[in-house]
């Protein structure tokens, strides 16, 4: 028994290692470029004698950022909460609304054109207003994130639920399936890939919205931090903040991608083969 399990463990470990090696092998060009980019940055500062208050070295960004890590991490947490709350509320409202608009010709003639024209408005332009109405706290940030996430989700949801192919629509009608049954067995799964297009787009917008909202009026968060340290001529710390914002954006996008893979594996695998 022990023998058997250790026998099994060995190839499993080896396959894990070989998977990592294979992944490295696939992305070596990217890694090389990445490392090269930062090396170039590091030494270009000397070569072109750029002063540190204009552009710091990557190594300085890391060491100075590390010295202020407690504040940075707390502010990352603040910005993450704002982004995530606004994002989730946007999805919770936009998906059912998109569904309703897709299935109601009345809503399609009224709210839909309104949304399409609002889509052209840069939502971030509302940010100063919300800050002035609601103050420096969490709520105006969540509302601004909500605004920048809401439209991509609702418009993609309308598209998703409104564009079942004609042959499948006929198939459903020919079976005499009840609307509920047709919805859960065909319409909903068929709509999910297009919905996720909206979710991913909104995930990218979420941290952008939170950062700009913090620029405009706040006393914490990475956007606030970047603005303050830039004012104090500390671009090294600003870059440290930007780096954490990037990680936050990547984490949110990565999480959505993981959920997508889990919810619609058939779609992902289909995309991989073609």
């Amino acid at each position: 028994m022990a023998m058997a399990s250790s026998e099994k463990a060995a190839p499993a470990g080896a396959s894990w290692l070989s998977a990592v090696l294979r992944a490295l092998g696939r992305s070596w060009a990217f890694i090389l470029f990445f490392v090269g980019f930062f090396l170039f940055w590091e030494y270009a500062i000397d070569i072109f004698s750029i002063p540190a208050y204009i552009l710091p070295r990557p190594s300085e960004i890391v060491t100075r950022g590390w010295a202020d890590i407690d504040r940075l991490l707390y502010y990352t947490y603040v910005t993450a909460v704002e982004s995530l709350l606004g994002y989730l509320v946007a999805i919770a409202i936009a998906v059912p609304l998109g569904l309703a608009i897709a299935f109601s010709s009345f809503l399609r003639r009224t709210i839909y054109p309104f949304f399409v024209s609002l889509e052209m408005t840069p939502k971030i332009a509302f940010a100063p207003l919300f800050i002035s109405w609601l103050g420096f706290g969490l709520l105006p940030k969540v509302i601004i994130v909500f605004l920048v996430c809401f439209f991509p989700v609702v418009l993609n949801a309308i598209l998703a639920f409104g564009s079942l192919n004609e042959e499948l629509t006929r198939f459903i009608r020919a079976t005499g399936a009840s609307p509920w049954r047709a919805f859960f067995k065909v319409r909903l799964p068929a709509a999910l890939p297009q919905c996720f297009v909206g979710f991913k787009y909104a995930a990218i917008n979420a941290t952008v919205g939170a950062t700009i909202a913090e620029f405009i009026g706040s006393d914490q968060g990475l956007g606030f931090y970047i603005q303050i340290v830039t004012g104090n001529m500390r671009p090294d710390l600003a870059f440290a903040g930007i780096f954490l914002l990037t990680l936050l954006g990547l984490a949110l996008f990565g999480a959505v991608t993981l959920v997508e893979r889990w919810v619609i594996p058939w779609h992902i695998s289909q995309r991989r083969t073609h």
Partner: protein
Amino acid sequence: MTAAAIDIRSATKTYASGTEAVHAFGPSSLTIAPGEFISLLGPSGCGKSTLMLMIAGLLDCTSGEIELGGHVVKEPQTSIGIMFQDNTLVPWRTVRGNIELQIELRGLPSADYRATVDRLISTVKLDDFADRYPYELSGGMQQRAAFCQTLVHRPDVLLLDEPLGKLDAMTRESIRRDLQSLWLEDRPTVVFVTHSIEEAIQLSTRVCVISPRPGRIEKVIDIDLPWPRDLAAKRSEKFSAYAAEIEEIFHGYGVL
């Protein structure tokens, strides 16, 4: 005299209206008796799919009417089996799951159809692919899966829109034979769209030749050949005579 299974009475279809109008089909009439196997044979765009959808109640006749099982068709007919020209397999279900979708959408108990599903899957030789997803199948295999999806609830009227269109010659021959034995056994009423003259003659009790758009049923030819019609039957003189007769008609239209 038994009632007609399908009675098409001066049915026409015009898509859109005004200057956009496309006169797609008719007016044409045809009475199909229960247990008949009718082929619709005609050039692309002559309204075969249109007629099929009108029989199924998925498209309204612009004028005229169609009766199915003694009732005028006014809404989608759920008692029949229809195989659409583009297959209706969904990407999130396996072959088996897609066949069962027909059962589930109808609210029938899946358990009761287990054996039927298995039998159909092996009839079309998809046993090894029952648990694969559509994207893992070739076009022809997808069509065979869609064929099973159409038959699984055992309808006694079948509307098949080019069910064998994407199959290679060999698979096509073997599925044809299966379709024929299935029909000989259960005697459903079949309306079968095809572009193959040979296929139409081999399978049908009657072949309807449809003119180019706007399609009309120009000629209905009784195929008086013994069943089952195997390869030997296809080499018979009578078979060739039917083929020549139909080719002649299409030649007249300038489509052959």
